[in-house]
């Protein structure tokens, strides 16, 4: 048993789990191979993985770093960074899900339905605008409250909820 662990790097149960799972996946891959579309599907499989790991993640992590730098060394009275993050992240989720409609890439949509796909950009901008506005109003309210509580000292910043 120890010898197995030393050679393999994990328990026999690990090997069983891997063999069972990979057999299911391998069988499905063999079925696709019969159709002659394995390469095309594999390109999209790996391509979408790379789009996440090599494009989406570095872009949003990079933008967040820029945001952190803008924030600077001195902590503001009420931290604003999450009042930018939250609407941007929420709006991005919507965009990632519906970009074919928002950007009118989904040509099949108007063709099949004879409905315009021009409304989706407007809807997305409207929702994004609402998110930004709500975030700004909440920030203004927190700032107002912090100013009023100023005499109480720095405890006011620490007790701000929701961040």
């Amino acid at each position, binding site marked *: 048993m120890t010898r197995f662990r030393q050679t*393999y790097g994990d328990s026999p149960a690990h090997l069983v789990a891997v063999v069972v799972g990979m057999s299911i996946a391998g069988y499905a891959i063999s079925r696709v191979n019969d159709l002659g579309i394995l390469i095309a599907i594999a390109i999209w499989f790996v391509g979408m993985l790379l789009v996440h790991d090599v494009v989406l993640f570095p872009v949003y992590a990079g933008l967040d770093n820029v945001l952190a730098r803008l924030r600077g060394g001195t902590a503001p009275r009420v931290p604003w960074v999450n009042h930018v993050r939250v609407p941007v992240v929420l709006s991005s989720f919507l965009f990632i899900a519906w970009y074919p409609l928002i950007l009118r890439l989904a040509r099949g949509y108007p063709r099949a339905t004879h409905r315009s796909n021009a409304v989706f950009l407007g809807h997305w901008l409207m929702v994004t605008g609402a998110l930004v506005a709500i975030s700004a109003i909440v920030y203004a309210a927190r700032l107002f409250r912090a100013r009023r509580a100023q005499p109480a000292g720095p405890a006011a910043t620490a007790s701000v909820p929701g961040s």
Partner: protein
Amino acid sequence: MARLPVDRLTDLALGRGEPPPGPFRPAFWRSPLRGPWLTAVFGCVLLVGIPIIFVTGLLSYASYDPGLGARNDQTPGKGLLGSYLFDWPTDPSWLYRAVIGVHVLLGVTLLPIVLAKLWSVIPKLFAWPPVKTPSQVIERLSLVLLVGGAVFELMTGLMNIQIFYPWGFSFYTAHFYGAWVFIGAFVTHVAVKLPAMRHALRTRSIARELRTPLADTVPEDDTESGLVATSPAAPTMSRRGLLGLVSAGSLLLLGLAGGQTFGDRLRGTALLAPRGGSYPGDFPVNKTARSRGITAADVSTTWALSVVAGSRTIALTRAQLLAMPQTTARLPIACVEGWSTVQTWTGVRLADLLDLVGAQPGTVEVTSLQKHGAFGVVRLADNQVADPRSLLALGVNGADLTLDHGFPARIIVPAAPGVHCTKWVREVRLVERGA
């Protein structure tokens, strides 16, 4: 003595010595929130959600009744992957609506959770050396299938419901086999990681975490997982803030899409969903007559429905069909794309049509006038044809069908997927099952 660059390259290739700079060094990762507990929370949600999406997907596949014959079977090479198939029932009539509604809406809802889960584990992608043991080699390979599969299934599903096909293969085939490849990797991943997830969940109390503000947010206490930052930055968001943000993302996606599934009164609330918005005095059309090449001449007064059983054929004009006993049924149309609508249909029972050619309800093949596009010919199972609510509908909500809704006649079958409710029907033919 300075080491030659070639030695350094050999070291890198063999995963020895110092990791390459950047994300391969632990100090690169600075978020104080990453850690096994956080990953386990996201993992826990996906552990519940993904099996539901998988099972509803398999049920939707079964609802197409691939066993009825080649016309219904888009994946003839499925082999063992179709071994669970069964005849799709007609009761309850909302069955398909619920199955595909859950499948699509849950997929949409889990998108932020999947992205958050990937964010939480991304340092592992750059772990150095990439593999230490044989167990890690195969595990990392399975992770390519797991992550690639998750993103592939989510994005192909989302793109399909927006009728966006930038790839050169059939969505139906790719989404089906992709699901099996993914679920194999998922089974491996769950089996391998379940103990770590359970252990990590015990390290913190979710109730306490939801009461912890930013000022008290500290990195997780763990050095084993490789997820906790070795030199964490000061937190700018609490753990509950991050969980709240991701949950809000899920609820926002659901809230802006749910209306296309929940009912026609709520359809207007679906601002970001393909079949949301308003349809004054009408309901959504999956594919218009024009998009399927149906012309006025096709459906003029010369149109007649053929009903065929063996050597017996009968042709029925719309007037003759209207003169037959009419049945009214309130039934949903539920599309594989996830949207649905419930309407009141009136028409002739399929069983009555077969009776005209002296046949009992059996497997029938329904042919549309449509010139192109998928599902121009589909088969309905014995139980579907025998159901007294299964109609060749001539009208909807007290009026004649419009051309886009299938005039002169369309099929409506309780609990059947939308594409089996053939529009612009030309022929109903009794066939041998499976032939």
